[in-house]
């Protein structure tokens, strides 16, 4: 027993000493390397950037004719750092330098590495280099067993562009177990217009999951060409498709979709009504105002909230409509209207008008009365206590009922 204990103590002590040594040496080694790297970078970075800003056909002369092996890592780092932060000609020049100096070849070889992170890194860097030579290799990497590699490959293909990437990414949308739909949708929408036609053409073949993602993408790409097609989707048999189409139309935000969206406000499924209300707000459709007022009385909370928000955004006419709703028979509608008038600062403006005279004053007073009757007097009490204008404070004190509620507590 004792011998066993002594042995285990020795083993643990040994491991302890070894670990400490590892930690200390690793840190020292890293710090030395870091210092060397930084010194090199200070020299090389201006050279690389000078090449990027200039017109020289090749980066090699600036580097002194050839790239020293010891500098390879630093130059690569500089090129990769900058290539992802610029667009246009400079980006192309930096990408060309990556190719010229042999990095692209190394990444292409790296796509076949047995280690997953090497493959992932290579895929990522190929995307940054923007080399069209990489397309074939990246398409193969889309089927990689490692999720990280697949995702980097998809991202790189998206960055390099070209139609070759669209079809496999669309397929990926239908496989939520293998891909994160959100990330793929992101990549597709960054590819922009060219995706729209292919999405619409492929739509009937997609499963529901992919269809919904496709609708989101169309909204993000802001393609006007998609509007009539999306309008037609508002009559789709599936409620999810209808509501996502309504959301996409709102994101694109053109008046052409207003009639279809107004109709969608009467949809039997509440998510569709909620999204339609929201999108009508984004479009600033004046004709929808009476319909949105009606939607304030909807059974579903989200529909009411979105309709109220939409009216708030609809400009003076919307505000007027909200003020009109203050005396509505429906309690829900009244409360939503109150909140919107508070959030937009209209209530404060109306309260300030209590100090004026004539019709303006009367109108303001009637609004305040409606708030009191609706029971939404929190802001009013705050103003009654602290408004800068004594006349206003007095008027509010008169309009507000005794605080029976507080006493009861």
């Amino acid at each position, binding site marked *: 027993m004792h011998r066993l204990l002594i042995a285990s103590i020795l083993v643990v002590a040994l491991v302890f000493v070894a670990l400490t040594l590892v930690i200390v040496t690793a840190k020292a080694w890293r710090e030395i390397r870091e210092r060397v790297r930084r010194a090199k970078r200070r020299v090389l*970075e*201006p050279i690389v*950037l*000078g090449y*990027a*800003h*200039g017109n020289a056909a090749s980066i090699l002369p600036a580097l002194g004719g050839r790239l020293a092996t010891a500098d390879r890592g630093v130059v690569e780092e500089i090129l990769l*750092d*900058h290539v*992802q*932060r*610029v*667009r*246009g*000609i*400079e*980006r192309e020049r930096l990408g060309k330098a990556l190719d010229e100096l042999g990095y692209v070849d190394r990444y292409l070889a790296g796509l076949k590495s047995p280690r997953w992170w090497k493959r992932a890194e290579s895929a990522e860097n190929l995307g940054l280099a923007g080399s069209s030579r990489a397309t074939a290799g990246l398409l193969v990497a889309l089927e990689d067993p490692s999720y990280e590699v697949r995702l980097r490959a998809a991202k790189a293909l998206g960055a390099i562009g070209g139609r070759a990437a669209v079809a496999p990414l669309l397929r990926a949308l239908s496989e939520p177990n293998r891909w994160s739909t959100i990330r793929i949708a992101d990549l597709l929408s960054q590819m922009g217009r060219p995706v729209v036609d292919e999405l619409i053409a492929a739509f009937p073949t997609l499963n529901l999951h992919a269809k919904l993602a496709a609708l989101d993408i169309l909204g993000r790409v802001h393609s006007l060409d998609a509007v009539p097609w999306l309008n037609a989707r508002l009559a789709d048999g599936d409620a999810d498709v209808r509501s996502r189409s309504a959301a996409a139309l709102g994101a694109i935000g053109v008046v052409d979709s207003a009639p279809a969206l107004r109709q969608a406000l009467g949809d039997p499924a509440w998510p569709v009504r909620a999204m339609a209300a929201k999108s009508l707000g984004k479009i600033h459709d004046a004709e929808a105002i009476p319909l949105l007022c009606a939607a304030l009385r909807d059974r579903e909370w989200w529909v009411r909230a979105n309709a109220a928000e939409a009216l708030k955004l609809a400009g003076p006419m919307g505000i007027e409509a909200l003020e009109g709703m203050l005396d509505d028979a429906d309690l829900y509608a009244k409360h939503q209207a109150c909140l919107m008038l508070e959030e937009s600062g209209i209530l404060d403006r109306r309260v300030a008008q209590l100090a004026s005279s004539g019709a303006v004053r009367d109108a303001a007073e009637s609004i305040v009365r409606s708030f009191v009757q609706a029971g939404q007097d929190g802001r009013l009490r705050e103003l009654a206590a602290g408004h800068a204008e004594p006349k206003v404070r007095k008027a509010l004190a008169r309009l507000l009922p005794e605080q029976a509620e507080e006493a009861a507590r």
Partner: protein
Amino acid sequence: MGVAKRILVAEDDPVTCRFVVSLLEDKGYEVVVAEDGERAASVAVDARPDLIVSDLVMPYRDGFELLRAIRNDERIKRTPLILLSMRDREEDIVRGFEQGADDYVVKPFNAREFLARVRKLLEPRSR
């Protein structure tokens, strides 16, 4: 041309900062640098730049706050300012202009286009 125009670059990401500086110096501008919004505000007063290029997201004071500080300071309120930002959403861009930015450039940006915007803002105003 007389003396070189002076440009203040406020940017917390060192790589982007070096790129912008090298780009501007390459075209013969004199460049001063600040790593955060707070320092940028004081450098702006001391160095009186002809133009400010500011990142939107920075420590201590973001681009909007820097912008407000500059527009509220009598000595430098007329200095044109370009906001540089990764945010490409409509709301952000609109807000940038509303807050008084003279231009808004989305990162990653096109170097030549960026230089053209700089040149335009540095022209003597003919309004």
